[in-house]
Each structure stands twice: as structure tokens, then as C-alpha cells.
């Protein structure tokens, strides 16, 4: 018998996605109490998210892809060794042999060794500058080679091959794809689907060679390699990437005599045990029922099954997995469900094809037309979720089943409602979360998507189920009588985005007009400032105009930030943080004259505190006369563009970050937005301006500017995402125009760009589509709108000090010249500060 002091030794070989998930699950079930867990991984990193490996090229670092930083392991005394290849198993003595010839004993062994890329033995396949696409190290060497390469070629036009082609393209290479089969993605797509995909991909300037066998790779004349094809033709290319399929990593099993399949793979039963009762195999190395599962979700299910078996639960078993997939490849939607090739006896097929818009959809149904057996989608995946649910849950097809793949027309039946899904329906296949699990979580009191994600893990794998999860949660909340209202408040049954569109499309110029046409009641402190901000974004009127003044939050109404005692702070704009000695002197003089507290802000400018409302216009008059403009520290609008000194002074700077920062600050100052917006521009990758923590971050490169978007400091910091690289000045500004206006147009009220991005369906790649490829046809409008705002900029303080009516509203008392007796200052470090309650009491006592 085992006692807690004499734990069994459980060893995991392979610290990939599935091996890690196994340990996580085992710990969650308390398995670390009965087992001393050890894990060996051949890679230098702990487990990382291989599914999102390609994001390593679009800005994600190894740390962000990591699935653990080791703390979970440390916490539960899991021993882990990276960079360590297990070279053999001695099943008789129950020992593992390590690469340094040491041995490790086990009681239970888990093989989670994954798979390796197959490299076809074409003569020349071992030449330099040839790669595979599986690990972070692979990507490092590809990136290194791409620095000097001009063209790249992927051998293999399957799912991974196309993903790799996308990566090469994003590295700036002229890209080819060479596929042996007559079509792309031969496993998932039929002939027509493959053709449509091919024409879409060709249109993206990737050259596709199907039906093409490579005979040999030799020295090239115009590039590093020449690939000679079977038909006598050839291409020249600097970099070659093999993506011709994967093979299960079963070397240990073979060496130790475990049962393996004819074409490889460690044979397992429904409990994931191999032919040796003490050895399990899970993930891509395992062969179940003569099948290998090259996706992460089935691997996770195997991991759970093995854990259950080890913990003595005999009810759980692995009985196969669904291999349906949906992806965006080079920006093209591709989906494949179930029996895509219609191989089931008697099956019937519906096909929809639109050559004009590159769309192809096929449904495979049972002989009686009642059930969905499979589907192929190319060009538009919005049909996928509904089809998948029909397939997975064997739901009876509707009367006009073909409507499921026809373009949406007036009166067409809506997609499958959540109601129609059985409780067992899988919502998230990566983590095997069912509709029932979601319903339980909501009943247990979880109300937000974020909490539900954290607890159930739904939508934390490939992310493909995000939309379905949201619908499911809303549905459950509704069932519980919790109203899921997206209305901005009781006065407008609209979202902020709806209101923005109404204002714009109907040319609405005031709150009263919008309320009259589309609202009810009289408004409140939620809708008034939100609509005030929308009106300002669209028309850019002076915010203290008679019809707008009552909409403004106190900060906007007095064009200054209210402090705790009712006094205000004053923040003049100091673009890029650059300021002359003369202007500094003016700030000093004004501060001295009005006895204001002075501080350098975190945004590279100077804040003067302690001005009363009545003093504001006088102070601002002095500042405006000295050439200052409002810094809009009070507005939900552009705050600061931080900068570093850049190439002008700094020995490392590669571009003039300061001039760019000033230009950007001057361009976007005055833009009212759903929340405040901050920028920064750094002169080189040392990043002294901390641009990656800003809504808009710009970093100089040898080739221009890299643009980062949707970063945030504050309560929930977020690193910005790399949006585009090596931009020239004009393109940089063009992209920022579009991104900001799209944000202004679509975000919720008080939603920073970071949260907006996290909630944007399709995320970064969607935003890129909208901004770079103009997928919504909006770019013109967005730019025009931004130009309007830029052209109509006015310094609100300059306007105010020239406007008698506005000045009147700054009187402390409408009928009196008195001061607010509750505003009392004391001295600290040679400046004023608001007196505390105790201090006030003492001062009053003294005065009496």
C-alpha cells in the first residue's frame, strides 16, 4: 500500500501541451498527494501553446505563449527537467535512461512525446536553409534566415503548410507553396473547395503549385536553392520549409518493445494504457483504434482519461474525438466537419458555390436527409458553428436543410438557437466543456464571460468557441431572469455603437434631438456625457455651447480636473514632453502668482493644482497668451504622446521619435473618444518611452516605424499587439487614423482600447483586416471623419476665455464674490496642499 510518505513515482516524458495538461489535471484532482510527479521535456522551454505558435511571428514572446512558468509545478512539488531527452525505457527494472546516461525509476509512466515533422527524403533535404515548423527554436532559425532571404517555399499545402506560408509572407518573403496532391488541404477539403482556396490564396500573391512533386534540391543561380520538379520545371528560393505531415514520436515505445501501429503510433486502449499496464500514452504520439489525433483537444481528453484511470475512476474512457476544424489561413476562412469527402454509404450532398465572391460550401447529409454527416466551408466560416452543432449533437436537420449553407436572405431561418442544443452539447471542444457545464457555472453565480472562462476553462484553448460561449452564457443568464441588457441606460435602448451610428447617419446635432427621436425620459449622468462625447467625436463642436454644456462631466464642464476639495488642476499641453525654458518660466510664474502646487506628471508634462473654479479663466488667459494650449487632461480624449529624445541626441536612436511624437500629439489632440487615449514613440527598441504599454505605441526601426496597438497601463496592464512593421510616416498616420476612428465608432462607453481589443470578435487579425485590407469598406469614411476632427480643432480654453457667456459659468457664486470657505491649504515641502479635516478643525479653532 502507498502512504503519503511513500508516494508512487509517476514520470511524464514530454512537456508539450498534452503532457502539461495531464499534470495540471492530475494536480486539480489531488493526484500529487498520492504520486511524486516528475516530468522530462526535450525542449529548452517548459510547455507552451504550440497551437498559437505562429503568433510568435506577430509579436508574442515566449513568455506569453508559455502555459506555465513553473510556479504550478513548484507549488505541488512536481520535479521538472527541461532540455533533457529520455533515451530509453527498461520495462523490466522500470527505469528510464536519460541522455546523460543516468537512470530514473518509475512506478507509472506517461508518454506524451507528441510528434515530429516528416521531412520527405528528397535529395538535398538536408541542405542548409531548410527548416521545419514545430518549435520555438524552429521559428527562431526561420526568422534568422528570413532576414537575408527574399523568397521562401513551403513544401506541403496542408493545414500547417498554409499556416507556415502565412508566416513566411509576414516575414516579408515572396512565398511559394508546393503540394504533391492535386489540391490544397487534401485531408480536409474536396476538389472544388481546394480550388476555391487556391484561387483565394493566389490572389494574395502566394504562388501555389499543386500536383507538383519535387525531385531534388540543388544550388540555385538567382537564389540559394533550386527545386527541380518531376515535370522538368523548377523554381529558385532562398528558404525551404518542410510541412509534409507529422509522424508520432514513438521511438521510446519501439525501443522498449511496446505495441505500435503499422504506420507508427503507440497503441493505446480506451483507458489510454499501452500494451504495458503501467505505461500510458497520450496526445499526438498515441494511436487509438488505428487513428492518430493531430489536434490538441483529443490530446486533452486523453490526458483527462489517463488521470481518471490513475485516480481509480473506471467510468471515464477515451472513445475517439471529433476532428472538425475551422481556421483562418492567410486571411481565408476554411472549415471542415466530419465526413467532408462524403464517404458514408448512401450519403447525399448539397453544394453552394459563388465564383464571384470566392465562396464554396458543401453539406453531406444522411441518405434520408435527416442528419448532417459532414461539411466543407471555404471563404466564410460564419456557417460553421451552427453546422458543427447539428453534426456533433445529431440534431434533426430543418425542412429546408440547404438554407444552412445559403447566403442569408430576408426571411431565412435564423441559425440554430441555443435552445435547440441538448445539455450534453459540447461548447468548447478544446476543454470539453458542455452546455450543461456553462449552465451549472451560471447557476453557481458566475455572471461574466471572464469568470466563466476562468472556472470552466471554456474558450481558453484555440479560442474558436468564443462566440458560441457568449451566446450560451447570455442564454443561461436570460433563463435565470437576469436581464442581459446592452442598453446604455434607461433612457436609450441602444448600445453606444448604435447611438454613434444614429448621430452620424441621421446628422443629429444635439442631445435633445437624439432623445426626442430615439430616447425616452430626460437623460442621466450615464447617457449625457456618453452622447456629449459622441457628438464631439462626430461634429467636434465647442463642448461648452449652450446645448452641450449640461451634458458634460464636471471636468469637461470646467475644462479642468476636479480635486478632492473641489479645486481644480491645470495641465497645459506639452507635446512630446518637449518644452522651452521660456515656457517653463511662464509656468513657474503663473504657479507662483496663484500659489499653485506644481508637479511633473507621469505623462511627461506639468500639473498645477489648487486653482479655484473662479481662478481658472484668469490663469488660462495667461497660459494661452504665452502660447500654451489645453492639455485636455480632463477629457476622454487624447492625453499625452510620450517620447524619448530619439536619434537627435541619443547614440542609439534610429529615427526622430520626438518629431514624430509632437506631430502625432498635434494631429490627434482634441479627439473625443470613448475613453482616454495615450500614445508613446520610442527612438529604438530600447523603448525608453514605454510605447508598448500605450493605446498607440510607435517604435522606430531601421526600416521605418513599428506600430503597436491597444496597450494599457493602469489597473489591468496589457502589452500592445504588434500591428504592422516598418511603416513610412504617411502609412503610420493613415493606420492610426483608421484604428482610432474605428475605436471611436465601435467601442463601449468608458472602454479603453485594450478592453475593446479583447472583446473584438476576431481580435487583432480582424482589426488588421478592417484597417489594412479595408475588409468593411470603411477606411475612406474613417479617414474623412478623422480629417474633419483634425481640421476643426480648437483650443477649448482659447475659445472659452474669448466667450463672455462661457466665462460667466465659472463664477464661484452666482450672486456673490465670496470664496469657498471649505477650501483650506497648509504648507508641505514648500508648497500648498489641501488641509486634512483635523487640520481644518484646528485652523478654525485658532481663528476663533
Amino acid at each position, binding site marked *: 500500500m502507498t502512504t503519503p510518505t511513500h508516494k508512487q513515482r509517476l514520470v511524464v516524458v514530454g512537456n508539450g501541451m498534452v503532457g502539461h495538461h495531464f499534470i495540471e489535471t492530475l494536480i486539480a484532482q489531488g493526484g500529487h498527494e498520492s504520486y511524486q510527479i516528475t516530468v522530462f521535456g526535450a525542449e529548452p522551454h517548459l510547455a507552451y501553446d504550440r497551437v498559437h505558435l505562429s503568433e510568435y511571428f506577430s509579436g508574442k514572446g515566449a513568455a506569453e505563449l508559455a502555459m506555465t512558468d513553473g510556479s504550478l509545478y513548484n507549488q505541488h512539488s512536481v520535479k521538472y527537467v527541461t532540455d533533457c531527452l529520455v533515451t530509453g525505457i527498461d520495462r523490466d527494472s522500470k527505469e528510464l535512461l536519460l541522455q546523460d546516461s543516468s537512470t530514473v525509476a518509475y512506478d507509472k509512466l506517461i508518454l506524451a512525446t507528441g510528434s515530429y515533422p516528416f521531412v520527405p527524403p528528397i535529395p538535398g533535404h538536408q541542405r542548409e536553409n531548410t527548416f521545419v515548423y514545430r518549435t520555438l527554436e524552429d521559428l527562431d532559425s526561420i526568422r534568422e534566415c528570413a532576414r537575408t532571404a527574399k523568397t521562401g517555399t513551403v513544401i506541403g499545402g496542408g493545414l500547417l503548410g498554409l499556416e507556415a506560408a502565412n508566416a513566411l509572407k509576414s516575414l516579408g518573403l515572396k512565398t511559394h507553396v508546393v503540394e504533391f496532391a492535386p489540391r490544397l488541404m487534401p485531408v480536409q477539403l474536396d476538389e472544388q473547395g481546394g480550388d476555391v482556396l487556391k484561387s483565394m490564396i493566389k490572389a494574395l500573391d502566394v504562388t501555389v503549385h499543386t500536383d507538383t512533386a519535387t525531385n531534388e534540391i540543388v544550388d540555385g543561380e538567382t537564389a540559394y536553392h533550386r527545386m527541380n520538379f518531376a515535370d522538368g520545371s523548377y523554381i529558385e528560393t532562398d528558404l525551404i520549409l518542410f510541412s509534409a505531415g507529422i509522424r508520432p514520436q514513438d521511438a521510446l515505445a519501439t525501443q522498449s518493445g511496446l505495441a505500435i501501429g503499422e504506420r507508427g503510433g503507440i497503441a493505446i486502449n480506451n483507458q489510454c494504457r499501452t500494451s504495458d499496464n503501467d505505461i500510458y500514452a497520450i496526445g499526438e504520439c498515441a494511436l487509438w483504434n488505428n487513428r492518430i489525433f493531430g489536434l490538441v483537444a483529443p490530446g486533452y481528453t486523453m490526458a483527462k482519461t489517463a488521470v481518471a484511470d490513475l485516480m481509480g475512476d473506471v467510468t471515464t474512457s477515451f472513445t475517439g474525438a471529433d476532428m472538425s476544424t475551422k481556421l483562418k489561413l492567410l486571411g481565408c476562412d476554411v472549415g471542415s466537419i466530419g465526413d467532408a469527402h462524403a464517404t458514408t454509404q448512401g450519403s447525399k450532398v448539397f453544394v453552394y458555390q459563388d465564383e464571384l465572391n470566392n465562396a464554396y460550401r458543401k453539406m453531406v447529409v444522411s441518405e434520408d436527409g435527416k442528419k448532417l454527416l459532414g461539411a466543407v466551408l471555404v471563404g466564410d466560416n460564419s456557417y460553421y458553428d451552427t453546422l458543427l452543432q447539428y453534426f456533433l449533437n445529431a440534431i434533426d436537420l430543418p425542412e429546408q436543410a440547404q438554407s444552412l449553407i445559403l447566403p442569408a436572405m430576408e426571411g431565412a431561418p435564423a441559425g440554430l438557437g441555443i435552445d435547440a442544443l441538448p445539455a450534453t452539447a459540447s461548447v468548447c471542444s478544446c476543454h470539453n466543456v458542455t452546455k450543461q457545464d456553462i449552465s451549472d457555472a451560471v447557476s453557481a453565480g458566475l455572471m461574466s464571460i471572464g469568470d466563466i472562462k476562468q472556472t470552466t476553462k471554456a474558450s481558453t484553448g484555440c479560442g474558436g468557441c468564443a462566440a458560441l460561449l457568449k451566446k450560451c452564457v447570455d442564454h443561461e443568464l436570460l433563463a435565470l431572469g437576469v436581464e442581459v441588457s446592452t442598453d446604455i441606460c434607461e433612457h436609450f435602448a441602444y448600445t453606444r455603437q448604435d447611438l454613434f451610428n444614429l448621430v452620424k447617419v441621421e446628422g443629429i446635432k444635439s442631445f435633445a434631438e437624439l432623445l426626442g427621436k430615439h430616447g425616452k425620459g430626460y437623460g*442621466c449622468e450615464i447617457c*449625457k456625457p456618453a452622447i456629449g462625447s459622441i457628438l464631439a467625436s462626430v461634429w467636434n463642436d465647442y463642448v461648452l455651447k449652450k446645448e452641450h454644456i449640461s451634458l458634460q*462631466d464636471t*471636468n469637461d464642464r470646467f475644462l479642468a480636473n476636479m480635486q478632492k476639495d473641489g479645486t481644480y488642476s491645470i495641465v497645459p499641453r506639452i507635446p512630446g514632453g518637449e518644452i522651452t525654458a521660456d515656457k517653463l518660466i511662464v509656468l513657474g510664474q503663473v504657479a507662483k502668482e496663484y500659489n499653485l502646487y506644481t508637479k511633473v506628471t507621469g505623462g511627461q508634462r506639468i500639473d498645477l493644482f489648487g486653482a479655484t473654479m473662479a481662478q481658472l479663466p484668469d490663469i488660462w488667459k495667461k497660459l494661452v497668451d504665452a502660447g500654451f494650449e489645453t492639455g485636455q487632461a480632463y477629457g476622454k480624449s487624447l492625453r499625452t504622446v510620450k517620447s524619448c529624445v530619439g536619434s537627435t541626441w541619443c547614440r542609439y536612436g534610429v529615427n526622430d521619435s520626438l518629431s514624430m511624437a509632437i506631430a502625432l500629439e498635434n494631429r490627434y489632440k482634441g479627439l473625443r473618444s470613448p475613453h482616454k487615449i495615450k500614445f508613446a514613440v520610442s527612438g529604438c527598441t530600447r523603448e525608453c518611452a514605454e510605447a508598448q504599454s500605450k493605446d498607440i505605441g510607435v517604435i522606430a526601426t531601421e526600416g521605418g516605424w513599428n506600430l503597436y496597438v491597444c496597450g494599457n497601463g493602469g489597473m489591468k496592464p496589457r502589452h500592445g499587439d504588434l500591428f504592422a512593421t516598418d511603416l513610412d510616416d504617411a502609412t503610420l498616420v493613415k493606420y492610426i487614423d483608421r484604428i482610432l476612428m474605428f475605436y471611436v465608432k465601435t467601442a463601449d462607453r468608458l472602454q479603453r482600447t485594450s478592453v475593446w481589443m479583447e472583446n473584438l470578435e476576431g481580435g487583432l487579425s480582424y482589426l488588421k483586416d478592417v484597417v489594412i485590407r479595408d475588409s468593411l469598406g470603411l477606411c475612406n469614411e474613417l479617414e474623412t471623419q478623422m480629417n474633419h476632427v483634425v481640421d476643426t480643432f480648437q483650443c477649448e480654453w482659447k475659445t472659452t476665455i474669448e466667450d463672455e457667456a462661457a466665462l460667466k459659468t465659472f463664477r464661484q*457664486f*452666482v*450672486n456673490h464674490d465670496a470664496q469657498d470657505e471649505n477650501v483650506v491649504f497648509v504648507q508641505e515641502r514648500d508648497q500648498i496642499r489641501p488641509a486634512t479635516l483635523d487640520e481644518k478643525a484646528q485652523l478654525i479653532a485658532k481663528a476663533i
Partner: protein
Amino acid sequence: MWTKVCQTDDLITGAGVAAMVEGQQVALFLVPESEQQVYALSNWDPVGQANVLSRGIVAHLQDEWVVASPLYKQHFSLKTGNCLEESFQICTWQTKIEDGSVFVAQQV
């Protein structure tokens, strides 16, 4: 006893201004859509401990006219001075408009 405070022109439609009435800070709100037209309540925000209520946004919530404090956003009824979120009640004054002038009644 009524005290004449200012002209209606001195008020801001849909928003507040502060006045000094017999040594007390009063927040005056002009709300033409409401029965009472002009409301007067203390300018003192008992939560934020500052004289700021005249600078809050006027809101109409479930049939009640309120002002949201500019500091921490609690709502105070314009009519009764009741705080909707916490157990505070602040002073209110009766008001009237005559010949374009705004009057505040002495407190009872």
C-alpha cells in the same frame, strides 16, 4: 420670507450653479421639464466632503430628478435631498420664479 438670489438668465438649463444665501452655499438647478422648474439644495456633498453638488450632472432616474455628485457619483434627490445610495439627507429650499428672478425661501 423669500430671498431674491439672481435672474433666471444666470442659471444654466439642465445644470447647476452655486449661490451664497445667508451664509450658506446653495446649489440651484434649472430644470424646465420638471414641475418645480428650479430646485435648491445644499452645495455640500456629505460623501466627498466638499462643496461641489452644483457641479454635478442632472439626471432623471425612475421618475425622480436627481443630481449625481461630481466626486463619487452618488445621487441626491433635487426635491427631498435624499441620497439614493447612502443614508444621507441634505438641506433643500423652496424656490420660485417671478418676473425673471429666482427666489429661495428661508429654511424651515
